[in-house]
């Protein structure tokens, strides 16, 4: 496990959550952030044309390499690169296009992209975020490494924890008993729920279905 990459995937996930509802640009929102499996040192961001899209056909995935250990892309770097992708016209080689989980995925070379400049709202959000939810180096357990909207009712969480290798995916239902689910989440992903494997999802080592909670 590349600990530096895992931590940066988690950092990118938590800092870009607001773009699930707030468009990056031109209505385009984030519909998922996938922890690229090792040894790939990247994050995969799933974009939707609007916040009502839920199916793989409606999504495009951009795999963004995070770079060397001492120069990892920050969440803001990722945001600015994504915004540049939304606004411009871009050329991709044929072999940088593939499929993952039924979605079309494009591999980006960040060194060849001119990032979009930060916007005033980004700074506004930073002020609010830091004052309202101060930064801490402590991570919750389990830690959120990514997520993906699978349907209107089903949200997949990608979670990890220090005493268990790899990534556990947990499918949850937003219309369920959210308070109970969140309280029991750590216990459930740590052996308290039946584990299966999703062979179509390369981003997790095991899967627990918590949609009935």
């Amino acid at each position, binding site marked *: 496990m590349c600990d530096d990459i895992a931590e940066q995937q988690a950092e990118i996930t938590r800092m870009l959550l607001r773009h699930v509802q707030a468009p990056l640009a031109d209505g*385009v929102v984030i519909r998922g952030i996938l922890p690229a499996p090792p040894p790939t040192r990247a994050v995969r961001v799933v974009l939707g*044309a609007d916040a009502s899209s839920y199916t793989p056909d409606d999504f*495009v995935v951009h795999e963004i390499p995070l770079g060397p250990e001492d120069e990892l892309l920050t969440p803001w770097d990722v945001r600015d690169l994504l915004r540049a*992708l939304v606004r*411009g016209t*871009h*050329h*991709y*080689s044929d072999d940088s296009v593939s499929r993952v989980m039924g979605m079309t995925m*494009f591999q980006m070379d960040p060194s060849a992209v001119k990032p979009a400049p930060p916007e005033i709202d980004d700074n506004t959000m930073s002020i609010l975020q830091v004052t309202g939810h101060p930064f801490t180096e402590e991570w919750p357990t389990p830690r959120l490494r990514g997520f993906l909207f699978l349907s209107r009712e089903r949200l997949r969480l990608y979670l990890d924890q220090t005493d268990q290798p790899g990534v556990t995916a947990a499918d949850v239902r937003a219309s369920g008993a959210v308070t109970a689910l969140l309280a029991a989440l750590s216990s459930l992903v740590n052996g308290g729920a039946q584990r299966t494997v999703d062979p179509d999802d390369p981003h997790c080592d095991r899967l627990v279905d918590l949609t009935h909670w």
Partner: protein
Amino acid sequence: MYRVTRSVLTAIAALCATIILLAISTTPAQADPSWNPRVKCSATGRDGRVVPTRFGNSELGWIHFSGEHNIKVCELVNFTIAGTSGKQVGNHLEYYGWVLGSAGFRRVQTVVVVQYTQRTTDRRYNAGPGQRIGVITAFCKNMNKCPNWVNNTKDDIYV
């Protein structure tokens, strides 16, 4: 009667000879078609091949595909050639690439067809000794005309 017939035959023969001579001197198939071999764009493929796009005419090259298929920027052709190893059959090469708009919510696949020899396969065009014909045509897959937005090079990025 015999003299009349003979003179008529002589006249017919002379007329035929004239027609044949005229035909030989004016048949287009015998002449090289008019084209402009000057290089408009140039790209280097992953295999090191330097592939020119010549102005050409309405049948091939820049003049052909910029009008017929609405590809109006060199970058689009050059990136497609430079970005992939392409498919090769003899000296016939095909390169494929993608153009993304709106982060990929609009996208088209580009195809560039190259003849990497001095002459075209139909022998009608000749780039000259040591030269290559280069790009015959370029187009967007599954459409006759590319959408206008593919020619938007402002803030282009290349991946």
